[in-house]
């Protein structure tokens, strides 16, 4: 029982990180029908910048409480990622809005490669450990262990998602975003400045991505310039699982994927009599994805993309 609960907790933690990143993918997809391949790199930059900031603080013997240093790092990392998201859209996607569907996908891959290389030039190719600044208190939760960090990740993720939903559903900006997602041309005719809405979408998604990046780094105690690829892939899978373009879907998909992965790596060995070990957990994630899509071709919650004739 406690192992089961433990896996659920671990799954929820990693799942809420996936969800935050998946939101970035799904928002962009909802508005532009574009897989923003470079989103994983934005997440990575968030993590790397934060680690660097904290290291600078520690190096200069500025001793603040751990969480405060983390916040200081985030204050630096979020604008960097937002700027990156903004720049990527302006440089690599906006000129291609009327191009064949695959052209922006290729520039996205190009941007992703460039960002990886730039990061690797700045920070080197090796793993960067996450500075040891956070309290490592472990709580007992019905027989399972849960750390302060894990609690913080889950709470922060919930707060951010709540804020995002509030913005999308209740504010002028959010209404304009929804209108643009439904039909950019009509939204444009109605006086919505589509370009700035698309920019805002990228910026918002990137900010969430930066926070998620820090969460990944803190959760796994490390970050490196090539981490964006796999985490981005997982998050995109989560977005598709939930129904791409659908915000609630991204959250559901992220958490589902996190829990499935976690349970998979915990029980796969037992379930298959040792034939498949935890090294197959990624297979599990993809198999679930394929099965879900075969039976529900537009994801768990269905997509919210208006079909265009």
């Amino acid at each position, binding site marked *: 029982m406690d192992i089961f609960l433990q896996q659920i907790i671990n799954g929820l933690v990693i799942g809420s990180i996936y969800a935050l990143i998946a939101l970035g993918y799904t928002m962009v997809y909802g508005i532009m029908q574009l897989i923003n391949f470079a989103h994983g790199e934005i997440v990575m930059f968030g993590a790397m910048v934060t680690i660097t900031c904290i290291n600078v603080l520690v190096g200069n013997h500025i001793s603040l409480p751990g969480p405060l240093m983390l916040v200081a790092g985030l204050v630096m990392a979020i604008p960097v990622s937002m700027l990156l998201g903004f720049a990527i859209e302006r440089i690599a996607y906006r000129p291609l809005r009327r191009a064949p569907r*695959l052209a922006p996908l290729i520039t996205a891959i190009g*941007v992703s490669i460039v960002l990886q*290389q730039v990061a690797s030039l700045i920070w080197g190719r090796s793993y960067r450990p996450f500075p040891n600044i956070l309290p490592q208190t472990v709580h007992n939760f019905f027989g399972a262990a849960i750390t302060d960090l894990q609690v913080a990740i889950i709470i922060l993720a919930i707060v951010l998602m709540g804020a995002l939903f509030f913005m999308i559903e209740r504010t002028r900006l959010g209404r304009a975003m929804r209108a643009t997602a439904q039909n950019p041309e009509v939204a444009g005719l109605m006086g919505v400045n589509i370009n700035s809405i698309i920019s805002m979408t990228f910026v918002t998604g990137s900010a969430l991505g930066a926070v998620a990046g820090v969460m990944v780094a803190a959760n796994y105690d490390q970050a490196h310039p090539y981490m964006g690829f796999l985490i981005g892939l997982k998050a995109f899978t989560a977005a*598709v699982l939930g129904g791409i373009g659908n915000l609630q879907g991204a959250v559901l998909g992220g958490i589902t994927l996190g829990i499935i992965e976690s349970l998979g790596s915990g029980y796969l060995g037992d379930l298959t009599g040792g034939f498949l070990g935890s090294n197959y957990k990624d297979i599990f994630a*993809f198999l679930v994805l*394929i099965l879900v899509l*075969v039976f529900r*071709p537009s994801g768990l919650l269905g997509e919210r993309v208006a079909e265009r004739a």
Partner: protein
Amino acid sequence: MHFAFLKTPRQRQIALFIFAAVLLVLPWGLGATFSSANSWIRVIDFALLYIMLALGLNIVVGFAGLLDLGYIAFYAVGAYMYAIFNSPQLQAVMPTWLQHPPFLIMIVICGLAACVFGILLGTPTLKLRGDYLAIVTLGFGEIIRIFMNNLDRPINITNGPQGIDNVAPVHFFNYTFAKPIDFLGLRFEPVYLYYYLILAFCCLIIFVTSRLQYSRIGRAWVAIREDEIAANAMGINTRNVKLLAFAMGASFGGVSGALFASFQGFVSPESFVLMESIMVLCMVVLGGMGNIAGVILGAILVSVVPEILRDVINPLQQGLFGRKIIDPENLRMLLFGLAMIIIMLVRPEGLWPSRRRRAELHPSATISEQENAGLQDAERTHG
């Protein structure tokens, strides 16, 4: 790209003839020019393999319009298939008559195996739309790779992350590609032999693809890409025709995989990562989706340019700044990524697009005429 001098069939024939002659003597030319010729011929051998892969993917993405992000899986299936039958890996358990089958039979088996995997993947998933199909194929590619990475337990089939070593080189009748062959007074090094072998298969695939392009099947593929509902309404069995594209593309991948395994002498999961799938896709799109010549150009550029950069970057840095400023490996990939972005921004239709795509992106005068006519129509109807 316009080749004004290739207007008449006669001129085309001559150009083709010259091109063929160049290809035939290419390794010798390189051998005479470079001291490190063999490594360059190796690069070209790989470029030829990539051309085959890119042409296979072009059937799926370029012709039928199905975005496949896990294409490398079929390459992997072909390569592992070849390696398992032609290496000591399973010698202990495999009956002797199954080991080291004749090369051509092996190629067919690898192609068929990949084809079966293509059908297995395609049957449940081809009804998915665009990007969903992309992510499912991506997942499939990863599944195959993870299996290859882990099928060393409980029974050691793939030898896990170490991969399968000692894959026997091609043996043809009484010849083996393990050591140089003397023929007509010329000494053919193994890289040369593989060059001609892979070139032959490459030509075969180019031939098959170009025949398919202008055929009933090829038209059906393009029709599905253009408008699936209309294709359906015209009586095309879209599911089967898509599946056919998938199977054809997969078998090309399988054949290239077999050649890769025999040429490299060793296969490991590292050669079949997602980035490889993406690179092959880049070749197709950068070169010019749907256009065979464009796809070949894309494959050559994407596979050869990074190798040239590898050789050029260090001397260049030394010359410009007197020392190594930037890690060459990083700089190489950085330039590569930038080139991808710039090419797409400047030529979104690819470097050498098909006639159709060009028309789509660079509307000729006829479209503006038509738009005017459309306006007049509207005025007439409403006025």
